[in-house]
């Protein structure tokens, strides 16, 4: 047994109990002073009494909890939450497209339409899963919200750039600003709706929950713009359409940051 294997044993439930170590581990400890010192230190930490709260503190805490104790219903399962996020996304999309129309769908190639649908659909699913996990403390998260947001933005941008021709027929700003405005107008009510759902959970990091909410609402706008905007050029899409998603994500992050700084968030 080597020191690294001793580390793994040191962190296991077996070692936690202070029970007899297996013979290979005992043999290693006899020969390795570094591990012996560490093992003794960790066991001392285990055996030493943890600090006791002042007498009366536990009672005060208990009294405060019991004062406001009422039955609560546990949050629905992750699948239900993810389904709810995607359902709201779909409803919002249908509603806005019902008003604005799907002009671009008629001029896009089939491969472009499928590619856009796949990209945005996958991003919505991943963002929804991330949000559902952020609503429950201690949930297993394969990827941090920060990493996921960056990854999705990079993949969306590069994917959309690859799907559409890199052309610029002029009036980059003149065509772009109305897209940005329309997109942002869609994200605001979408973000409000999604946040009402998110706050039903117990979010610990409001900045990243805010950013994820902004991302999801930005994806509503992106889908609307992709299906409605007739400018099917990569620079326009990458800057103005994806720009709406980036702006919405950043706004969500700032919103979460402001929430955290409010005293009520931390009580």
């Amino acid at each position: 047994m080597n020191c690294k294997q001793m580390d793994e044993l040191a962190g296991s439930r077996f070692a936690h109990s202070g029970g007899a170590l297996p013979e290979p581990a005992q043999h290693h400890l006899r020969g390795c002073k570094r591990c012996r010192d560490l093992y003794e230190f960790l066991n001392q930490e285990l055996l030493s009494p943890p600090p006791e709260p002042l007498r009366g503190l536990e009672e005060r805490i208990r009294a405060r909890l019991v004062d406001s104790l009422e039955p609560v219903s546990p949050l629905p399962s992750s699948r239900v939450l993810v389904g709810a996020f995607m359902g709201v996304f779909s409803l919002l999309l249908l509603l806005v497209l019902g008003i604005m129309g799907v002009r671009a769908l008629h001029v896009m190639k089939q491969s472009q339409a499928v590619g856009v649908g796949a990209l945005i659909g996958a991003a919505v699913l991943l963002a929804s899963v991330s949000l559902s996990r952020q609503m429950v403390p201690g949930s297993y998260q394969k990827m941090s919200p920060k990493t996921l947001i960056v990854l999705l933005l990079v993949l969306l941008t590069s994917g959309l750039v690859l799907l559409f021709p890199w052309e610029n027929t002029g009036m980059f700003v003149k065509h772009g600003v109305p897209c940005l405005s329309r997109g942002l107008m869609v994200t605001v009510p979408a973000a409000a709706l999604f946040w009402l759902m998110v706050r039903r959970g117990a979010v610990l990091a409001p900045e990243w929950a805010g950013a994820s909410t902004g991302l999801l609402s930005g994806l509503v706008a992106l889908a609307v713009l992709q299906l409605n905007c007739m400018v099917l050029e990569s620079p326009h899409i990458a800057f103005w359409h994806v720009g709406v998603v980036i702006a919405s994500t950043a706004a969500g992050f700032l919103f979460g940051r402001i929430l955290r700084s409010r005293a009520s968030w931390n009580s």
Partner: protein
Amino acid sequence: MPEEPPTEDLLPDDGLNEPALGEMMVRYQHADPAAAEDLVRRLSPVLLRFLASPNYSQSYCEDLLQQCWLRIHKARHSYRPGAPVLPWIYAIARHTRLDGYRRHRRIQSREISIEEHGDLPIWDNQAAAISGQDLFRLLDALPESQREVVLMLKVSGMSLEEVARATASTVGAVKQKAHRAYEALRRMLRPGPG
């Protein structure tokens, strides 16, 4: 590597027994005051150890503990019956500690040093058979991400998977942090020259 013995014989005392905690959480969600009292009694000592720091006064640490419990209370609906309790509790506790650290830094930069008020550091009035202060300070010298992993693994007896959930991380990352923490502790425990 030898097989691990069955864990039922080796779990820590009933305080942190997962099935018991899970059952208490469900009763707590159903507004059972006895369950709330049980949870506070069982978890407060380990939570206080987790939240405390040698740089904090005892009153500040206990304030953090109260805040932690208020957050747990507010978030109790987010616990899903059947899920492990300790990752859920510790996820809330580590955010409480992080917010407490930020607030403490802001207070320190504005106010008179705590020592001048005579408010003792938390370990000064603890009667530990060993030098608890030294052990505490050694752990506190570790980076936060390593310190919390060691405390969760060793004090609460959580598994690597549970620590990964509590820290929103992966098992591989937890193993790496634990290994780095143990290496750092080995260096700190090595006697100095002369």
